[in-house]
């Protein structure tokens, strides 16, 4: 690890740079405010990644549990079932139903050196489990720090002093770790906001050599290499969340000059393995990150990959959600999910969890959700309305009803996960045995309703 009190700023935005002393002043100001607040479990919701980092450290320093909701919406906190005493946020207006600690009201105060928190203090995040309810995952700073050290060991030299910017939000653990904590602990500068458009990457790269922390959802939509910054200005591109399509990885490597470094892992396991296309036409196998061990265990569905490392959230061997084939040299190939959770735009979503939420709406009698293929994979919702719902449908039309249900789900889900196609038949299509078949549900979406 390099010296963290480097002269480089901690973070930069379009308007300002945040140096180390100003950053630590923020941490201290938040610590002081938290020390006199009774809350024990605090949800952290910030648009600005530097406030997110400061909030996370301040909560750890004061022995509070830092709860990171699955999505930065008030409904996501409620729906996760996480008990929360207060919300620490840079946009308090949206969280009026909770006790809020508004970052804007906390004035900078205090000084002195800060040591990073101990192993036993954790952040708590939520991810889609397979049982139909959000799953709570706790990580100690020790686990996060060991993972950062592993990433630094593997790629630190290649990155040098490049500026770290991300197309993915910081409230997903991959973003928290790679976009915020890694640069913070390694003395690199990060950009405070998510860069959602390719033009923003080009603008930063015009000034700085960059590390781009991204995902297949973004990279696979890059139509031409010219949309990305010149390859010479880019130290590395990371992609995580889901495997990158072969065609995309190959094209970027060939036409742009950088093969994205894909990291395989999950909120529960942390980083496990990586791969990057080289000049050859063969799809590369996944190679383990330093200090990570794997093995396969047989199940009815196939051979499930298990992982052991210093940054899995539970110690010892941990199951991943994936089936795999292990090659003789320890590298492996992934063969698909072992459970019913689907991946959409690199985010995990449990269809049974979403179904439970929809069933709670006053107009809904029954629901089936399924994954639809197409240029953009999305969720299709087949909803059987009750009498009240049918009355509304007759009065307001289909668009009004689907908008209402989308808005209902938007309280708990990020917009990219919401169903994009809706069908409201009178009954679910069932076969002679009374069983609703997947194929007949798919059939409902074969044509426009």
């Amino acid at each position: 690890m390099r010296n963290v009190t480097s002269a480089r700023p901690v973070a930069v935005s379009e308007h300002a740079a945040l140096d180390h002393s100003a950053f630590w002043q923020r941490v201290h100001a938040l610590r002081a405010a938290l020390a006199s607040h009774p809350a024990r479990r605090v949800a952290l919701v910030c648009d600005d990644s530097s406030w997110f980092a400061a909030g996370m450290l301040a909560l750890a320093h004061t022995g509070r549990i830092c709860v990171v909701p699955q999505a930065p919406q008030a409904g996501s906190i409620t729906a996760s079932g996480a008990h929360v005493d207060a919300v620490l946020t840079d946009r308090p207006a949206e969280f009026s139903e909770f006790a809020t600690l508004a970052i804007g009201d906390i004035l900078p105060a205090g000084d002195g050196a800060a040591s990073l928190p101990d192993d036993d203090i954790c952040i708590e995040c939520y991810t889609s489990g397979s049982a139909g309810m959000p799953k709570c995952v706790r990580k100690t700073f020790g686990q996060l720090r060991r993972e950062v050290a592993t990433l630094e060991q593997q790629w630190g030299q290649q990155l040098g002093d490049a500026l770290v910017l991300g197309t993915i939000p910081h409230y997903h653990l991959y973003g928290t770790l790679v976009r915020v904590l890694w640069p913070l602990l390694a003395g690199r500068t990060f950009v405070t906001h998510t860069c959602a458009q390719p033009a923003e990457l080009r603008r930063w790269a015009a000034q700085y050599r960059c590390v781009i922390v991204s995902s297949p959802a973004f990279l696979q939509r890059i139509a031409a290499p010219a949309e990305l910054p010149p390859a010479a200005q880019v130290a590395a591109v990371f992609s995580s969340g889901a495997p990158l399509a072969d065609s995309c990885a190959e094209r970027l490597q060939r036409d742009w000059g950088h093969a994205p470094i894909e990291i395989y892992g999950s909120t529960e396991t942390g980083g496990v393995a990586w791969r990057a296309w080289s000049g050859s036409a063969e799809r590369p196998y996944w190679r383990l990150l330093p200090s990570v061990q794997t093995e396969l265990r047989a199940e009815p569905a196939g051979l499930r990959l298990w992982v052991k490392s210093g940054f899995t959230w539970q110690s010892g061997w941990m199951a991943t959600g994936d089936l795999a084939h292990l090659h003789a040299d320890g590298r492996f190939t992934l063969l698909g999910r072992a459970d019913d959770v689907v991946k959409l735009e690199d985010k995990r979503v449990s269809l049974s969890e979403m179904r439970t939420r929809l069933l709670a709406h006053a107009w809904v009698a029954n629901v089936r959700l399924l994954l639809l293929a197409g240029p953009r994979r999305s969720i299709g919702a087949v909803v059987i309305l009750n009498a009240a719902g049918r009355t509304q449908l007759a009065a307001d039309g289909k668009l009004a009803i689907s908008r209402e249900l989308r808005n209902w789900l938007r309280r708990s889900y990020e917009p990219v996960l919401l169903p994009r196609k809706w069908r409201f038949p009178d009954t679910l299509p069932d076969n002679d045995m009374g069983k609703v078949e997947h194929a007949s549900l798919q059939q409902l979406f074969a044509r426009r309703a």
Partner: protein
Amino acid sequence: MNNLIEELQQLIITSLDLEDMSPTDIDPHAPLFGDGLGLDSIDALELGVAVQKKYHVKLDASSADTRQHFHSVENLAKFIAAQRGT
């Protein structure tokens, strides 16, 4: 300008594959994202690509400017008109 607004309403529906919606369902003044039409970040990316392809405009501005241009159909139409110098 009105033609451009109608074109954009149609472009949004076709390029983003929005169902059950006709061009007139998209209020030119309402926000495209969040509380208005409810488009998401992937839609933003795809709409950006579609607009650049169809109108040959460049989105090289800062993120604040980009957000402003994509705020509504009306803003987008103004931005395209200005870039084309019409």
